[in-house]
């Protein structure tokens, strides 16, 4: 009997049943996808970390090195399990030719290495340490992804010919967000290249107790060992490796969460409408003595069937979609050890969705207890409560056309009913606007203000070296003489120590110079103007627990000096930990010199950069826009894809829910529609009334969604961006987002309303008005 009842019901309400199933499918797909992707991402990172035997502590160093001193520090420190120093031969991009492509414009620090003897292995795509033979070159996997290199291509490194025989995974520097990339060559080839580049060192430690990494870091700094470069830990490598895909998972999670809310709202709306429709039947069943549990079973069984089919399809779809989405993770990090766990968790997630749906149906069906058999049979479903006070009278309306007035009045009088559609439209607008605003913000030229440098055209960087003073003079002379340069400023990065709140000392890199020449945005306070003022990057502010107005003690060879924190800014470069001051301290060692440059003619950026690189071969010239593009290019592209997908999903939800809602509304309003037709209202009149309802809700939904997107949405995007070190993100929007998108939603809603209410014209007056 149940089977027949369910079958008849499903056939009679095909659209509603399919829509419900689609939502349950979408819900399961997303929940299951998040499970699969998260587990695989964690698994792949773990596998890569294990296979490559990543160092737990890494100090990059530029300059002279005392290996013996380091060796004795490692031997003396109880937490050190293993220690090594690897060479990283930094060769300028102009000297690297991969097939047809030159890395001249590449902003990465491209370095050449030989395979490590002990740990920190460079791996092939099977996860095995590579042992190249002479003339062979292994290229970072990222360059394969970008299409810069192919296996079999000939490569020319500083004039020496190599053959690209494979790609390598580097647990440290895989991510496009890591600023360096390692190439792997044979020891003999490496020796031939040494004279062509500048040597940097990777001072690497494996620790016995990972929990004591911070203590080790402090001990290393206290020992005054080589530290002319960034300090990194294994935890940070994991974060950098997982960030790009993590953002994608976070976005799926957000959309998934909203879809779950929408799906449950739709289930609630359709079920309550169905109960209302079946009120007399339910009353009759109660009256003839059917137990409540039996009556409930009929409803639960139907939704259980829909949920079961929806969950199964969703699960299968998640397996299908996970393939392409895992592609990037697999390429960069290899297979995950937890693949089978991810499948189990996906199945578990789908079961949770199924049980949640059934549980929710049971929860909604509680109201059966309140149905009185007698009144249900006599009068049908109870009337909706009308507004207690009536402020708008049709007979007093002189402004709106009658049909428009009736439409709006209906929405205002039955707010509870229309709330479902309103919330769905509001969330759709939110899903649409937030990713697009994020994309617009990240791709806008003003985004550089979050990167820790001002609105410049070019940046010239120079590491500390023996010829430092001569080189510096050469650069200054060049910049002063060049006619294409409008303005430039010299910023010197120096390494100091600063006292933390707990009294311990930590390394701090301070950029010294005039920070008002190329101003950046401070999300608190302002740039340092007095010699005793300092501005901290937000990561440093957190690290040292400082706010604007606090003081911080900076230790140099001249002694301890107290600075007042004048401002806090966002910075995503150099590990996000920087500081800015104007004082010049000659005692501290210079790490690098930067020159921020503004050109007279911005169309000449590329040309000027090339000229500069040729005239000053010892510097690195960075095109600010290009730099942003290369660091964030992949992330910006993913955000754009996510924004496009969100747009389509949101429009689809808008259309589907509007259609479903209007169909149910027409079914619910049958007597009123029949009455209006009887007293002479035409089908066009009815269409206008329902269109008004749809539009009115849409306008409120879009307005509400936009406000929500700009407040709550901005905070969410800000939270995601904060993981890059970008604080206080403010959306930069585009008129099309607030004008074009509502028009798209309007068109979809109009179309859905038109289709959804097309049955209104076919409602037979006689059948629906008699009783």
């Amino acid at each position, binding site marked *: 009997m149940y089977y027949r009842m369910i079958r008849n019901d499903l056939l009679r309400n095909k659209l509603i049943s399919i829509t419900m199933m689609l939502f349950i499918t979408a819900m399961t797909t997303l929940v299951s996808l998040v499970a699969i992707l998260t587990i695989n991402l964690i698994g792949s990172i773990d596998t890569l970390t294990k296979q490559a035997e990543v160092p737990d502590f890494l100090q990059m160093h530029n300059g002279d090195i005392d290996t013996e001193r380091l060796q004795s520090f490692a031997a003396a420190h109880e937490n050190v399990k293993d220690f090594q120093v690897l060479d990283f031969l930094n060769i300028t991009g102009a000297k690297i030719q991969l097939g047809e492509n030159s890395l001249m414009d590449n902003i990465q620090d491209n370095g050449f290495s030989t395979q490590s003897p002990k740990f920190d292995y460079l791996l092939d795509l099977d996860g095995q340490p590579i042992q190249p033979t002479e003339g062979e070159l292994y290229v970072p996997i990222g360059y394969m992804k970008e299409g810069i290199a192919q296996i079999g291509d000939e490569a020319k490194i500083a004039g020496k010919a190599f053959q690209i025989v494979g790609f390598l995974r580097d647990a440290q520097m895989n991510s496009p967000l890591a600023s360096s990339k390692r190439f792997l060559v044979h020891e003999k080839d490496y020796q031939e290249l040494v004279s062509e580049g500048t040597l940097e060192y990777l001072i690497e430690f494996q620790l016995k107790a990972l929990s004591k990494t911070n203590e080790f870091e402090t001990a290393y700094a206290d020992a005054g060992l080589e530290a002319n470069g960034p300090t990194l830990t294994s935890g940070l490598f994991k974060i950098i490796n997982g960030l790009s895909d993590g953002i994608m998972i976070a976005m799926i999670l957000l959309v998934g969460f909203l879809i779950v809310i929408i799906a449950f709202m739709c289930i609630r709306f359709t079920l309550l409408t169905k109960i209302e429709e079946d009120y007399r039947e339910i009353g009759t069943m109660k009256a003839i003595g059917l137990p409540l549990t039996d009556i409930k079973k009929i409803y639960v069984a139907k939704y259980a069937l829909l949920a079961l089919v929806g969950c199964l399809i969703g699960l299968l779809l998640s397996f299908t979609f996970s393939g392409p989405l895992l592609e990037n993770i697999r390429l960069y990090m290899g297979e995950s050890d937890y693949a089978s766990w991810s499948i189990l968790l996906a199945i578990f997630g789908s079961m949770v969705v199924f049980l949640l749906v059934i549980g929710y149906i049971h929860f909604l069906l509680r109201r059966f207890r309140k149905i009185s058999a007698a009144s249900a049979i006599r009068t049908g479903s109870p*009337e*909706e409560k*009308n*507004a207690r006070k*009536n402020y708008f*009278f*049709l*007979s*007093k*309306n*002189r402004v709106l*056309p*009658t049909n428009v007035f*009736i439409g709006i*009045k*209906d929405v*205002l*009088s*039955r707010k509870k009913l229309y709330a479902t559609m309103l919330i769905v439209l509001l969330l759709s607008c939110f899903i649409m606007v937030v990713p697009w605003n994020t994309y617009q913000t990240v791709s806008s030229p003003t985004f550089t203000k979050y990167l820790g440098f001002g609105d410049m055209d070019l940046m010239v960087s120079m590491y500390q070296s023996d010829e430092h003073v001569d080189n510096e003079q050469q650069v200054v002379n060049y910049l002063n003489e060049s006619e294409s340069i409008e303005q430039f400023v010299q910023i010197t990065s120096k390494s100091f120590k600063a006292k933390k709140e707990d009294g311990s000392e930590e390394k701090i890199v301070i950029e010294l110079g005039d920070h008002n020449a190329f101003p950046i945005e401070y999300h608190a306070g302002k740039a340092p103007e007095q010699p005793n003022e300092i501005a901290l990057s937000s990561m440093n502010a957190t690290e040292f627990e400082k706010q604007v107005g606090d003081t911080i003690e900076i230790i140099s060879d001249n002694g301890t000096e107290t600075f007042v924190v004048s401002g806090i800014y966002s910075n995503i470069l150099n590990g996000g930990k920087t500081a800015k001051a104007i004082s010049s301290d000659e005692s501290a060692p210079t790490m690098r010199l930067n020159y921020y440059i503004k050109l007279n003619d911005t169309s000449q950026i590329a040309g000027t950069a090339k000229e500069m690189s040729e005239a000053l071969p010892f510097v690195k010239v960075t095109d600010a826009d290009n730099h942003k593009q290369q660091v964030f290019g992949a992330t910006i592209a993913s955000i754009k894809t996510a924004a496009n997908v969100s747009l389509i999903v949101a429009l689809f939800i808008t259309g589907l829910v509007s259609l479903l809602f209007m169909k149910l509304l027409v079914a619910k309003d049958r*007597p*009123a529609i*029949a*009455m*209006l*037709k*009887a*007293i*002479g*209202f*035409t*089908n*066009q*009149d009815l269409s206008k009334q329902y269109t008004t309802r749809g539009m009115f809700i849409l306008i409120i939904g879009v307005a509400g969604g936009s406000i929500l997107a700009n407040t709550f949405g901005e905070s969410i995007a800000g939270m995601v961006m904060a993981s890059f070190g970008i604080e206080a993100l403010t959306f930069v929007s585009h008129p099309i987002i607030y004008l074009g998108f509502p028009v798209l939603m309007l068109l979809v809603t109009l179309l859905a309303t038109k289709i959804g209410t097309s049955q209104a*014209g076919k409602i*037979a*007056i*006689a059948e629906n*008005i*008699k*009783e």
Partner: protein
Amino acid sequence: MKKVINAQHIHKTFAAEKEKVMVLKGVSTTIYKGEFVSVMGPSGSGKSTLLYTLSGMDTIDSGEITFNDQSLTVCGETELSDIRRQQMGFVFQQPTFLKNLAIIDNIVLPALRDNRKKGKELANKAKQLLERTGIGDLAYRMTNQVSGGQLQRAGICRALINEPKMIFADEPTGALNSKSAEEIMKNFLQINQEGTTILLVTHDAKVAAQSERVLFMKDGQIVDELHLGKLSNPFLENRTEKVTRKMLKVEM
């Protein structure tokens, strides 16, 4: 006398599941200007269907219906809507209103559709109608704040707002107590006296007895007719008896 409705050989079938049920089997009837006609018959005899088809609210399978010499069978949906709105008025057994509009707004609704600018004038007219039917003080109440009888009178006011040529009433007293039913019938009689043609479907012999002609239906056909003439109150009981006797004969 001028014919308001002329129906010839109308057939109407309802399709129920797998079988078809013929509800009207070649009904022919004429209603003249100013008449007050009742239709009586047992349940399922087709009396309500006749009312809905004669008013153009329901379609017919074959036959011909004219309203004021205009054929309803050739009219499109929009034309039929215009005729219903401008020339007909309807009163239903269950007074159906837009629940979120006040009573006065429901009454002016069919008139405002064509005369949006005349809201004030129409509101005054609605108030006069409400006064006439004895519920003048309920104009700005919501529909759930008044009794069934009061609501039915509001329904009559709505039917009259466009000064229709004819009113169709489908068991207008069916859901009311006897006191309310009496008051409603007084309203109908008054409207009829003022010249509006009325076609009313009822089960109640006392209600039918107040009309001047009664059509008796059985199994989809008009099987008998009773001419009572205009009502004069002292003879109401006699007329009711006549209608009852005729009805019993029809049902046997």
